[in-house]
């Protein structure tokens, strides 16, 4: 599979629980991005990685959100003590390098529902 993969595809969790979302980028892509999309609306930028470093964490909505990337490949987005307003589709994308003329390739997303 050459595309960006995300798991799980769907996650239903109870308010207050922690969740981990996983993204596996395209092989060879050094940049990785996380976005949030609510009900077919616009994309909210969360964080991006160049290699294993996250130069800009300003998009994370609160300190309950964190992300890491190891080995320049897989990334996990962790949401602690989930709230109902966290319900959304979480999209991951990767590109050859961050910025410039490099387009992003998106995964299918993880639909998170907090009950």
């Amino acid at each position, binding site marked *: 599979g050459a595309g960006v993969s995300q798991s799980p595809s769907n996650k239903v969790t109870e308010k207050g629980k922690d969740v981990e979302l996983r993204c596996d980028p395209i092989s060879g892509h050094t940049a990785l991005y996380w976005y949030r999309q609510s009900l077919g609306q616009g994309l909210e930028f969360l964080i991006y990685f160049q290699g294993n470093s996250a130069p800009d964490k300003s998009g994370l909505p609160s300190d309950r959100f964190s992300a890491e990337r190891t080995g320049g490949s897989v990334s996990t987005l962790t949401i602690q003590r989930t709230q109902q307003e966290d319900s959304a589709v979480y999209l991951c994308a990767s590109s050859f390098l961050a*910025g410039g003329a490099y387009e992003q390739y998106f*995964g299918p997303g993880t639909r998170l529902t907090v009950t």
Partner: protein
Amino acid sequence: AQSVAQPEDQVNVAEGNPLTVKCTYSVSGNPYLFWYVQYPNRGLQFLLKYITGDNLVKGSYGFEAEFNKSQTSFHLKKPSALVSDSALYFCAVSTPDMRFGAGTRLTVKP
């Protein structure tokens, strides 16, 4: 700050008519501009990009976009719309992270 704006939430066109989805940008320096499309229940797909050179950029599915520096615009166009073009369209600027517009929902009616 680098940003793009999509002034229309919704665009409706009849099949066979030309379509335009508008995007304006605010960028210091030379912009790298992109269009993405999101079909119902599917992920975002790259359509086309402007880097430099020819102001008319051609992309997938018969779409093209015109870069206009004086008007700071990067409108998406297609000469003859298809019902299957109905989707959510996003303009974006590379900053180095990608900043997206709010999206425009295009509906093409038979």
